[in-house]
């Protein structure tokens, strides 16, 4: 196949992004476990990953720029480079948010908690981790049918977000938890919602990579499809 060197460079780039995605998934995994098990030591292991992810993200970004300058990509190659840059950004930001949450876990390790709110946080964290994993899987497999389902699954996170915010605004009597923990819980709710959004966006970017259309447009076509033909 012509352009073997270019293809090899694209393959390497893709592999680097998926490796980074795997590492961020590892951080999310530890974050969820640390929340479930009140394991501040496990959370502490993830402190500092942000710097590493940002450095990796910058390397991938630079590689994309060099490939654009040297290889003048068009069509699917250009879409791949744009998608890689966007996905990398989602990965790095998710890693940063996960580290923020790990910080909150270590900083509030001895604090009193609101059990209802904590249960809501853990469910939201599991859901965010699942959506992130799903988004990355879709990107790896170019499975755009699942991207549509993922877009719909985002509604569940929005619902959990509303529930958690409601619990923060209206604590049950005598069970509000320590003020610092409560404040961090409010931030964590927001971070988890963002992580889930990044996962969904990775799926949406995959739709653009495969079809050249934005997910909103593809979703509209999917909604408007003629069911009698299926």
């Amino acid at each position, binding site marked *: 196949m012509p352009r073997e060197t270019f293809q090899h460079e694209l393959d390497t780039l893709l592999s680097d992004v998926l490796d980074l995605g795997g590492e961020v998934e590892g951080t999310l995994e530890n974050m969820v476990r640390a929340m479930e098990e009140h394991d501040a030591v496990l959370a502490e292991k993830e402190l500092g990953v942000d710097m590493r992810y940002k450095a990796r993200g910058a390397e991938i970004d630079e590689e994309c720029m060099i490939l654009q300058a040297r290889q003048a990509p*068009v069509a699917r190659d250009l879409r791949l480079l744009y998608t890689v840059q966007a996905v990398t950004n989602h990965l790095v930001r998710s890693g940063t948010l996960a580290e923020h949450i790990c910080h909150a876990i270590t900083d509030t390790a001895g604090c009193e908690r609101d059990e209802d709110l904590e249960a809501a946080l853990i469910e939201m964290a599991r859901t965010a981790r699942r959506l992130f994993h799903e988004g990355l899987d879709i990107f790896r497999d170019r499975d755009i049918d699942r991207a549509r389902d993922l877009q719909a699954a985002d509604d569940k996170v929005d619902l959990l977000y509303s529930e958690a915010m409601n619990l923060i605004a209206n604590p049950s009597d005598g069970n509000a938890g320590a003020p610092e923990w409560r404040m961090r819980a409010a931030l964590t709710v927001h971070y988890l919602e963002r992580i889930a959004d990044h996962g969904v966006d990775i799926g949406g970017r995959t739709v653009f990579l495969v079809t050249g259309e934005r997910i909103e447009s593809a979703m509209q076509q999917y909604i408007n499809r003629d069911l009698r033909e299926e």
Partner: protein
Amino acid sequence: MGDVQPSPGDPEENRDPVDSEKKTREGNPTMRPVPETQNQDSKSAREDLGGMGMSVSDLNAYYGSFKAVTDVSMEIQANKVTALIGPSGCGKSTYIRCLNRMHEVISGAYAQGRVTLGEQDIYAKDADPVIIRRRVGMVFQKPNPFSKSIYDNVAWGAKINGFRGNMDELVERSLRQAALWDEVKDRLKESGFGLSGGQQQRLCIARTLAVEPEVILMDEPASALDPVSTQKIEDTMDDLKKSYTVVIVTHNMQQAARISDYTGFFYIENQGDPGQLWEFDETEKMFSNPERKETEDYVTGRFG
């Protein structure tokens, strides 16, 4: 379709213009002098310069029994640049030469189908190929100035087409449109051969413009030029399309992406088959998300 020769405005070889003109006056049926009424028309016909669209329907092009291009239909938009890309031997140049009846100049070559220039069917029985080629000018891959001065290179085509206006103004305007004026304005009487390759090609563009065609066909006009000369020719495109319709064959896909509004991809499905127009769309679409896999494989450099 009649037996035709290249028009004076579109010389493919370095013919001596004086010699050609003499032949014309001696009665070469395909290079006859333009009638007086037409001379008067040509003085003012292009005062309100604007390109003319072309419509191609079911065009087939042959070299004897060999079918080189099959079933091409294409709307060429007025005042736009249309680029034709595709692997070597897929019929791009053959096709473009059918747009001003240059294809049939080759012995045994002919075309079938319908090509209109505005309302004019260029293959109608009463259509004069010489007039068609004046209205649809052509710039070739290799610069081919006459062995005349820079000034005469530009003026000659217009002169024998009956131009009666201010020749100095026409020469200057044509050279400016071809982005060559500043480089040659002080040596208009020097030979065209003294120019660099890039300048010679722009001189040929100026020569084509001086005849005031409505459509300009360019067959790989920058393929033999250095990047600076190529850039100068590309830079003229934006200005040219204000007054002309441009169709350009290019092997440089980035050039097509840079300068054209529409792109047609020609392709041969199986070895020995005729070339066909595989995909035709807005350039933006063709280079970001083409419909057909073969187009995407070609523009991404995966074959060809």
